């Protein structure tokens, strides 16, 4: 090994500042706040734009189902369960386990498969248990919920990618799981806003965004998380 090479590498490292573990912890906390704020802000903006007064000012129509009342217990149970699933998804997507190479492909694939299934099962199960809102709403196919989910998830998706930063093994799959995790948080927003549990509506408006976000996450993961040669 040449001393010249060693000196060159150490000098290059010294010339480039890099965050220590404590810096990364602070930075990730800040990014977490930004993710939460962007998701919450997007939710508030979207619901304000979709409010009765705003829609009427724009000459739009207000459908009566928009104000369908749900029991508080149903909302709390449904959102609470989704929150637990979303937190688990974020833990799976952002923590690497005990290895710097991240979680194994099998675990990531299992997680990616279980996330949407468990969210859908929980939503439908809660609605059946509370005997509410499983009726068809043909005038609400789900495009507003789709838009809400994508709008709310954009900030968390980028923030989660920034927190993860690098995945030398399976960057696309890691990105897809990050997309699912961001989608799981957007699911909570859609669940809070939308009273409909009609399954075709849930599939299009609530579940499809998870697929879209997973695809976007995979593309962004491959582009941003994989180490690149210069």
């Amino acid at each position: 090994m040449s001393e010249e090479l060693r000196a060159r590498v150490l000098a290059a490292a010294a010339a480039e500042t890099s965050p220590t573990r404590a810096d990364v912890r602070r930075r990730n906390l800040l990014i977490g706040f930004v993710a939460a704020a962007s998701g919450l802000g997007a939710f508030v903006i979207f619901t304000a734009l979709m409010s009765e007064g705003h829609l009427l000012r724009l000459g739009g129509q207000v459908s009566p189902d928009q104000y369908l009342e749900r029991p508080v217990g149903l909302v709390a149970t449904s959102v609470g369960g989704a929150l637990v699933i979303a937190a688990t998804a974020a833990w799976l997507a952002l923590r690497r386990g005990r290895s710097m190479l991240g979680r194994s492909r099998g675990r990531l694939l299992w997680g990616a498969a279980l996330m949407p299934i468990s969210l859908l099962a929980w939503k439908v199960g809660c609605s059946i248990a509370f005997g509410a809102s499983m009726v068809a709403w043909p005038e609400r196919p789900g495009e507003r919920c789709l838009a809400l989910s994508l709008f709310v998830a954009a900030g968390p998706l980028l923030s989660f990618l920034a927190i993860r930063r690098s995945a030398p093994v399976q960057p696309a799959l890691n990105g897809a799981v990050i997309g699912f995790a961001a989608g799981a948080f957007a699911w909570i927003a859609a669940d809070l806003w939308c009273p409909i549990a009609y399954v075709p509506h849930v599939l299009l408006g609530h579940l499809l965004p998870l697929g879209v976000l997973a695809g976007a996450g995979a593309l962004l993961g491959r582009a941003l998380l994989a180490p690149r040669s210069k």
Partner: protein
Amino acid sequence: MAVITNEGLDGADAAMERYARGDAAAFGDVYDAIAPRLLVFLRRATRDASASEDLMQQTLLHMHRARGSFIPGAPVMPWACAIARRLVTDSARRRRVEQRLFSEIPADDDRMMYAPAAATAAADDLLHAHRLAGRIQQRIDALPELQRNAYQLIRHEGLSLKRAAEVLGTTVSAVKLRAHRASVALRAVLRDAEKPA
């Protein structure tokens, strides 16, 4: 075949842990512990001394940038190998694109550039050994990438099946199968060499 030892790797893990906490001097220890093995890994992968030095520098700088996310107790070498492997793939892809753009350079030229100069040995057995080593290297180069990577990580880098599987992002049984197939192919080269002409 290189003799595999794990000396220094525990030291590398501890040095990386100190570096992650902010001890700037620990990077030198990380370098000393992993750079020789990393360079051998990269030389085998690229067969180009200057390219491998450049990629090793990039790998270590990548680790430097990511030091804050280093997990306490995590082994450093599989991480370094995974980054290096990704950089080799990316650099080869980039080279192919450049070759396509400057099409006067034949696509196979990099192999020629990386080929080691023929050694001149007087003794017949030395010549025979050299030829055999060349044939084995050719066979290693001709192996499918998945088999070659598995074989190199296990036989040359001394990683366990589990660690190699993590680096390659696959299962232990898949790595075992790939390394076995590579070994079978290389044994065939040795058998052919032993046959009388």
